[in-house]
């Protein structure tokens, strides 16, 4: 059972749940005020959106919500956690992933299909992905700032670096590889009708745990 965590202002929780179903899994929602993840949780998704309106810093307010204590314990026990877009920002603000996400260098929201190189196909979640995948990116603050030398980088933009992130980083993992965050939206790449199914293996890996 995959727990999709909702905060006020979360937007992509339904799409994330649909992606879990497309990967053969089942999903349930957890609410920010819950002290514990739902019983039987085998994986966690922090979905995209504008939790708390992105006020102060994106992800900052959500990262301090009660449910994040449970997510932290789950991750420390080796559970698989996937943060997408705002979920990635929440994981960085919570200190579960390295670095910080700042405003795109264009200073504008960017919504566009991009290609990602899978820089590390060895984590629990990125195994099974094609070397290069097509997924949409859509955010205002996706400019990752961090130290690539000490970070387990899992995704880089292929070709142009649309948001201006350090070293074209699009997604990172923790050292152990069980927590992964990325700015682009793999849950919007699980349905051929919408243009790409390249994101599906990520959800299969999450569901398989």
């Amino acid at each position, binding site marked *: 059972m995959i727990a999709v965590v909702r905060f006020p202002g979360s937007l992509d929780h339904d799409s994330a749940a649909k992606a879990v179903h497309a990967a053969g899994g089942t999903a349930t929602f957890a609410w920010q005020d819950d002290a514990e993840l739902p019983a039987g949780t085998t994986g966690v998704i922090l979905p995209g959106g504008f939790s*708390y*309106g992105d*006020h*102060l810093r994106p992800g900052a*307010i959500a990262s*301090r*919500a009660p449910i994040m204590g449970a997510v932290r314990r789950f991750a420390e026990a080796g559970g698989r956690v996937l943060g997408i877009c705002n979920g990635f920002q929440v994981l960085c603000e919570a200190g579960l992933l390295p670095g910080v996400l700042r405003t795109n260098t264009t200073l504008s929201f960017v919504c566009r299909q991009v290609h990602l190189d899978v820089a590390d196909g060895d984590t629990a979640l990125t195994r099974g992905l094609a070397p290069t995948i097509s997924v949409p990116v859509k955010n205002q603050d996706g400019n990752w700032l961090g130290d690539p030398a000490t970070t387990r980088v899992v995704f880089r933009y292929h070709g142009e670096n649309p948001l201006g992130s350090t070293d074209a980083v699009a997604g990172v993992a923790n050292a152990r590889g069980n927590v992964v965050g990325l700015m682009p939206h793999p849950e919007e790449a699980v349905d051929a009708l919408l243009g790409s199914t390249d994101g599906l293996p990520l959800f299969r890996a999450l569901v398989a745990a």
Partner: protein
Amino acid sequence: MTRVIVTVMPRAGVLDPQGQAVAISLDRLGFGHVDNLRIGKRIELDVPGDDPEGQARRMCEALLANPLIEDYSIEVAS
């Protein structure tokens, strides 16, 4: 060059959604109810010429502040 600090705050009476969201969060974090929280911008810059204050004022009118919803104030370092 003269160091100038420009402060831009939401005008009194204008909704400050950011301040509101942060106040809710502080309350939830156990800091209790916080009153009159408002968030604005602080802009630090070095201004050339011999009328830094006037220059900064013109910058505020032209770009740094939106007079419809923001008030600004200028402080010139001595």
